[in-house]
């Protein structure tokens, strides 16, 4: 037998990768949610926030590329896990049932590949829509403190005057909540941080986190549709 080596693409390596990138992406999601709260304050607050990000210049580009890398690594490792799993049991038993507690198998844990795939497509669409303005609005500008800056607030508000976009965004945020319901505690477990004391805590915290993130994001399009 050859000397065994650490392999990033082994079964455990992929879990470590999915877990670490998952934790980092959750950090990003929290940051994104907090930043977006400026939408509730108004045009100046939100455009001031986005302008502050643009002032970062090169740092912002590095952060954007880093985030794209995180999403890509997370997706690739998870898709490879899914592919390996579908090949590990060619013949299924006719009856399959869960033994119940302490099993954490739920509709959320079973649908990670589905919710994850939708989220991946959504992230590409979302960035294309607001960062690169593929549906227009890239040229909107406004004056902030005597300086001409991009008016992203106007694009966001105009987008969510269309009920179809509200439905799409709210729907995807519900799926994000489902993804996080399993993903939150699972990420900590995947990097080996949970023991029998911490696991129930992480599992419960995952429910709170999932609801908080999903609701936090989905009220934004609804609020803008109704009140902006």
């Amino acid at each position, binding site marked *: 037998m050859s000397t065994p080596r650490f392999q990033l693409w082994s079964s455990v390596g992929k879990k470590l990768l999915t877990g670490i990138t998952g934790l980092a992406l959750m950090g990003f999601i929290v940051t994104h949610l907090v930043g977006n709260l400026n939408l509730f304050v108004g045009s100046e607050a939100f455009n001031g926030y986005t302008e502050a990000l643009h002032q970062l210049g090169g740092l912002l580009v590095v952060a954007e590329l880093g985030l794209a890398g995180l999403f890509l690594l997370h997706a690739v490792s998870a898709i490879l896990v899914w592919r390996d*799993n579908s090949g590990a049991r060619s013949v299924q038993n*006719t009856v399959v049932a869960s033994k119940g507690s302490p099993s954490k198998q739920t509709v959320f*844990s079973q649908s990670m590949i589905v919710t994850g795939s939708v989220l991946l497509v959504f992230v590409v669409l979302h960035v294309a829509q607001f960062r690169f303005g593929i549906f227009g609005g890239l040229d909107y500008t406004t004056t902030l403190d005597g300086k001409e800056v991009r008016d992203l607030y106007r694009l966001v508000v105009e987008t969510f005057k269309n009920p179809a976009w509200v439905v799409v965004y709210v729907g995807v945020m519900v799926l994000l909540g489902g993804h996080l319901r399993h993903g939150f505690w699972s990420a900590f477990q995947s990097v*080996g941080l949970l023991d029998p004391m911490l696991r129930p805590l992480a599992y419960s915290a995952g429910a709170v986190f999932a609801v908080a993130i999903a609701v936090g994001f989905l009220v934004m399009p609804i609020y803008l549709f109704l009140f902006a």
Partner: protein
Amino acid sequence: MTDAKKTRSYKLRIWRQPDAASTGRLVDYEVADVDPDSSFLEMLDHLNETLVKKGEEPVAFESDCREGICGACGVCIDGRPHGPVTHLTTCGLRMREFGDGVTITVEPFRANAFPVVKDLIVDRSSFDRVIERGGYVSVNAGSAPDANALPISTDMAEDAMDSAACIGCGACVASCPNASASLFVGAKIRQMKILPQGDVERTRRALAMVEQMDAEGFGDCSNHGECEAACPKAISIENIATLRREYLRAAFRS
């Protein structure tokens, strides 16, 4: 038979497969006069006696100790490894758990790494090959040491024993939607990681056992936690967390 103990009868749907090369199918049987206090395996013995009397091939299934400590028995009963009761082996399962006249589906532990040998018997030697790659200590452990001769605290001994309780039955693999062996491998790695005798091969063990686990065609883990519920010894998925930590640690040590 007195009135005090009423026997039960069941409709069984059992996976029959003559050999590894054949395709199997579910076959219907009826079994009567089953003592509710008999074990699931005794019920199968009872069925086999009637089949032999009729000149039919008995149902092949594995068993050895029949007291829950050897890990030989194990079938999927109504879709659950070792049946509906948590933390119990098939041999410990009593027929009183099943109401009179119900239909029970009996199928083998299913995974590509556990090919069917015959009927309900699967080949679990993939587990043996994983153990061969790292589930050992190369120091001479000798006979049982004198009490307190080794500096191992009660907590440490209990912790190691919680993992060492694994009997290698394969219910974790059978219950896992991904047919992953992570709980089995995690338990073996954690057991030997805790005790000083296992320290010499610690890094190599984590890498080698994971490599063999993957080579055997087990699936990856998705943290469903179904294995812990199916494990007759209630091995915690904490062992899977340990597996990840040990593998990550090995990345910096190898």
